[in-house]
C-alpha cells in the first residue's frame, strides 16, 4: 500500500510537471492550476476526514484565514509571495491549534456543526471588520510577483502552475510522511478504534490535534496561493461553496488514501468545467452526480479500485499471499 501509493504519487507529480510543457492552451493550464489548488485543499481536509475520522464542515476557516493572511501581508506589509504563502500556512496552523483544542472534544454531528459555526463566525467577521478586511468590498489587487511584470500571459500561467505544483508537492510530502509515520498510524488507530488506541498507549486527542493542525497549515498554504493567483480575497473564501467542493472531492476520490483526494480534485474540477456545456442544467446535474456517487461508490473511487484490485488478487493467488510490501516477513 505504502509503496504503491508513493509510486502513484511520484508518477502523478511527473505527469503534472510535464503538463505545462505539453499543453500550451492557457485555459487548460488554468484548470490545471485550479486542480492543484483543490488537490492541496482536499489533501488537507482528508487529513481530518480520512485520518482523524471526524467530518469537518468548517475547513474553509483555514482556507479563508490563509487567503486573508497572504492578502494582508502582501497589501499592508509589502511582503513578497515567497514569504506570504508560508506565513499564511503558519497563521492558519495557529488558528487550527486554537480551534482544534475546542472542537476536537466533540464527536459526530456535534463536531460537524461546531466546525461549521467557526467558519461562519470567521466569515461574518471578515465581512464586517472594515478596518482590517475592507468588509464586503474585499481586498483586491493582491500583488503579483515582480518577475511576472513583463511576462507573457502564458509564462505567467506556467509560473503559477509550477508554484501550485510546488505547494502540492510540499503538501503531499508532509501528508505522506505524516500518514506513513508513527503519527499517522496513531491517528488511524484512533479513527478505527479509540479503545484499542488507548490500550496501546495512544492519547487520542493528541493525534487528532496533530492531524488537525497539519490540515489547517496545508489549507492555509492553499489559501495563500489563492490570494495571489485570483488577486482578490473576499469573505466568500469562508463560504460553504468551497466546503462543498472540498468534501465532495475527498469523498468521491476516497477518504483515508493520499491518492483519492487528488483524483477527486481532478475529477470534480474538470467535471465542473465540463458541465458548463449544459448551461442552466449544470448545478442540477452536479447534485445528481453527487447523489449517485454516494449511492454507487460508497467508498469513493479509490475504495472501488482497491476492492477490485483485492478481488483480482484474491482469485488467482489466494494461496500465495505476497509479502513483498511487508519487510521483515521472513523468519
Amino acid at each position: 500500500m505504502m509503496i504503491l501509493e508513493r509510486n502513484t504519487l511520484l508518477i502523478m507529480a511527473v505527469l503534472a510537471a510535464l503538463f505545462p510543457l505539453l499543453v500550451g492552451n492557457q485555459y487548460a493550464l488554468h484548470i490545471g492550476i485550479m486542480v492543484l489548488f483543490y488537490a492541496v485543499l482536499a489533501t488537507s481536509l482528508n487529513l481530518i476526514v480520512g485520518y482523524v475520522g471526524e467530518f469537518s464542515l468548517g475547513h474553509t476557516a483555514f482556507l479563508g484565514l490563509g487567503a486573508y493572511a497572504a492578502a494582508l501581508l502582501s497589501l499592508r506589509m509589502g511582503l513578497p509571495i515567497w514569504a506570504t504563502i508560508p506565513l499564511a500556512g503558519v497563521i492558519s496552523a495557529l488558528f487550527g491549534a486554537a480551534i482544534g483544542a475546542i472542537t476536537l472534544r466533540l464527536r459526530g454531528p456535534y463536531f460537524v456543526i461546531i466546525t461549521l459555526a467557526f467558519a461562519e463566525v470567521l466569515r461574518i467577521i471578515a465581512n464586517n471588520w472594515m478596518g482590517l478586511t475592507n468588509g464586503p468590498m474585499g481586498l483586491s489587487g493582491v500583488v503579483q510577483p515582480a518577475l511576472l511584470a513583463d511576462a507573457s500571459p502564458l509564462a505567467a500561467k506556467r509560473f503559477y502552475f509550477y508554484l501550485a505544483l510546488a505547494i502540492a508537492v510540499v503538501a503531499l510530502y508532509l501528508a505522506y510522511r505524516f500518514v506513513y509515520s508513527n503519527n499517522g498510524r496513531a491517528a488511524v488507530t484512533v479513527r478505527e478504534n479509540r479503545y484499542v488506541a488507548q490500550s496501546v498507549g495512544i492519547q487520542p486527542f493528541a493525534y487528532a490535534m496533530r492531524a488537525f493542525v497539519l490540515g489547517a497549515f496545508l489549507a492555509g498554504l492553499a489559501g495563500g496561493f489563492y490570494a495571489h493567483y485570483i488577486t482578490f480575497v473576499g469573505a466568500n473564501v469562508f463560504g460553504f461553496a468551497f466546503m462543498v467542493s472540498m468534501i465532495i472531492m475527498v469523498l468521491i476520490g476516497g477518504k483515508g488514501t493520499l491518492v483519492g483526494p487528488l483524483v477527486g480534485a481532478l475529477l470534480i474540477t474538470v467535471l465542473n468545467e465540463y458541465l458548463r456545456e449544459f448551461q442552466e442544467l449544470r448545478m442540477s446535474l452536479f447534485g445528481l452526480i453527487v447523489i449517485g456517487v454516494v449511492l454507487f461508490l460508497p467508498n469513493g473511487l479509490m475504495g472501488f479500485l482497491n476492492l477490485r484490485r483485492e478481488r483480482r488478487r484474491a482469485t488467482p493467488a489466494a494461496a500465495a499471499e505476497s509479502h513483498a510490501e511487508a519487510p521483515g516477513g521472513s523468519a
Partner: protein
Amino acid sequence: MDMLLQFVANGLVSGSFYALSALGLTLIFGLMRVVNFAHGEFYMLGGVLGWFVTTYLGLNFFVGLVVVVVAMAAFGWLVDRFLIERVRDQGEEPSILLTIGLSIFLTNSALLVVGTAPLNIAGAVPNAPVFLGPVVLTQMRLFAVAACAVLILAAYLLIRHTRLGRAMRATFQDPMAARLAGIKTAYVYASTFALGTVLAASSGMLLGSIYSVQVSGGGLISLKAFVVVILGGMGSFAGAIVGGLILGLAEALWGGYVSSGTVDVIGFLIVILTLIFKPYGLFSTQVERA
C-alpha cells in the same frame, strides 16, 4: 424601555418562527441521526409549492396548505425509501453528502422551473398592525405565532400519543425490539422522514406568506435551523422551542444594541459556547447506562 420591550417582542416572534422552521430538522436529526442538509430546501419547496397552489392556481391558503402537506409527505417518503434507506446505518458522512447533493439538485432544479424571482404567497389573514402598549405586532404575525404553536403541538401529540408516534420512538430507541414487536421499521423510518419533510415544508409555506419565498434561500434556513437544534438538543421538541426563542431573542438584542450587520454571528457564538460547556444541548438529559 419601550425599545427593550419591542426588541423582546420581536425576538419572541422571530424565535417562534425559528422554532417552527427547525422542527423538521430536529425530528430527522434527533430520531434518525440523519444530518439533513436539504432541510432548507424542503422548507423552500414548501414555499414554492405554496406559491403555486395559492397565487398560481388560486386555491384558498388552507386548502393549499393541505395540498402542500400531502405532496411533500409523499416526496419525503420517496426520498427516504430511495435515498436515505440506502445509506442507513453507515454513519453520518454518507447521509451528509447525500443530503448536500440533494440540496444542490433541489435548489437548482427549482431555479430552473420557477425562475429566480421572489414569490408571493397569498396570505391567510390581513396584515394590519396590532398595538400592545408600546409594542407593535401585526395580525399576520400573531396568526403565524399561533400557527407555530398549533403545528408544534400537533407534531408533539402525534409523536407522544399515536400508534405511529410510539412506533417511531420505539424504533429509534431500539430498532431490534421494535422489529420484535411487529413494527415495520422501514415504514417507520420513511414516515419519520416524511413527517420531518412536511414540518419543514409547512413552515416554509406559512413563513413564506409573511415574508416571501426565494428559491435560493434554503441554505440560510438550514444554518439557522442547525443553530436552533444544537441549542435545544437534538430530537427534543421542547428544546427546539426554547432554542428558537433563545436565538430569536439573542439576535433581536444583538441587532438592537450591538449591530444589525453582524446579527448572524450571535447564533454561532452561542452554538460554540453551548457545545463547549453543555455538549449535548441545553436540555438533553444524557442517561448513563450501566
